[in-house]
């Protein structure tokens, strides 16, 4: 059993490396999944070279959404903001390393939607953002 809850997910849920908030920040965005009430806010600091220097998330939700946020932020430190625009669903699934059904997929992808909406400076986090480089 428990394939879904690989050690890494439980570990990132219980001891997240990037939980918190950044004030001041360069990019901040928050949204929620009304279905389950998962809520996440992501703050980024971007250096003069256009690369992410610091990242933090805050909020509440299931282990999948929270671990996904932590893993995602870990993966973008030092990355160019423009690169973040090209992150997709597949990247998140690779980070989590699990298969998810349609309901839980929404939890897993919430952090990416929020991150991309913030980076693009959009008003809301939509599902279109889960595909390659849309604006």
């Amino acid at each position: 059993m428990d394939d879904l809850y690989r050690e890494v997910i439980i570990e990132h849920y219980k001891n997240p490396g990037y939980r918190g908030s950044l004030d001041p920040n360069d990019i901040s965005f928050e949204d929620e999944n009304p279905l389950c009430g998962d809520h996440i806010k992501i703050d980024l600091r971007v250096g003069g070279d256009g690369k992410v220097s610091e990242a933090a998330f805050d909020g509440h939700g299931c282990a999948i959404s929270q671990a996904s946020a932590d893993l995602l932020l870990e993966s973008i430190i030092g990355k160019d903001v423009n690169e973040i625009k090209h992150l997709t669903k597949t990247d998140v699934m690779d980070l989590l390393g699990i298969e998810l059904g349609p309901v839980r997929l929404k939890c897993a992808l919430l952090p990416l939607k929020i991150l991309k909406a913030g980076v693009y400076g959009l008003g809301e986090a939509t599902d279109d953002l889960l595909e390659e480089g849309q604006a």
Partner: protein
Amino acid sequence: MTAYNVEKIRKDFPILGIEVSPGVPLVYLDSTATAQKPAVVIDAMDEYYRTSNGNIHRGVHYLAERATSMYEASRAKVAAFIGADKPKEVIFTRNATESINLVAQTWGRAFLNKGDLVVLTEMEHHSNLVPWQMLAKEKDLRLEFITVTEDGELDQAVYDQWLDQGPKLVAFAHMSNVLGTINPAKAMIAKARRAGAITLVDGAQSVPHFPVSVKDLDVDFMAFSAHKMVGPTGVGALYGKEELLDKMPPYMGGGDMIRKVYLRSFTPNELPWKFEAGTFCIAEAIGFGAAVDYLNSIGMDAIANYEHQLVQSALIKMKTIPGLEIMGEKAAHRGGVVSFTLPGIHPHDVAQILDQNGIAIRAGHHCAMPLHDKFGISASSRASFYLYNTEEEINHLVVSLQKVVKMFS
């Protein structure tokens, strides 16, 4: 009376024998969302399509006659099941939700006016909230709510205060799909009547689980769904008192609901067909009748007693899990629903891990967001029990919940 034989009952439900993965049998604890179906219900629908399929009320050939009499026989069974005097007081709809919308859009539109007070409760399913919110917006009605106490009961003192203000309608769930609370419907309806209000009971969770008589309750309208009472999806019913249904304008327009149609006008059909426009889900309506026959064969008293034992045992066993909190645990009368939270563990995670153990429970707000707000949480996990669940399944649930707690500790 013979002893309740749950093993025999389980054999009537083909799906209860499946494994969700090799060696992991299904433990179905989500009957509040939808109940499983016995073979007699599945067969009744199958048989109908194989031997009796024809459109009802419109043909004179063998199949049309046969389908019509089966459909109407099913209505009579459903009417008798809820203690209605006349089959024509039972309107077939798609589900409880449609039944409530029907009342809002016909009776409500015709008889409620600007400023009228409609009393609902904080424990309603969205299906008994949103139709009234929509109507309130359209007609500028006033909605007020009977509050829910910490024990998970309706605050009757608050109800009395609203009654003093002369509501036109009081609408509430007979049994909460989250707390399991069984509300004192008969007394509440009597009070509403004295205050001059029309009453609507959402029977989606009561009719499947214990004997309900509309006559004894003296309720004006009652809504329920077949799929929660071992019947098929796609069909439900609205009970209404004849004199009220007679005064109401039709709901949807089309075939079957008319007596005569001219190019610019029509006259509506008589009850109950006035509210049944278009070709209906005939097979499902017949399956509904088979479901009622099945429940009668076991006996609603026996089912209610058995579920009562199960839930009492579940409450005791579940409370041994560290940190587990049950919503509305102390309600004086409760049915087979236990909604709970575990500290620091999201209900989605609980449900997902249980699923890997073959256990189906529900996680989320169970279509009752305002009630969860009231309890200060965004979601809960819910295990619910029905006539085919067993003590062993409860034990399995408890052991699996212990595993969940351990994983996250």
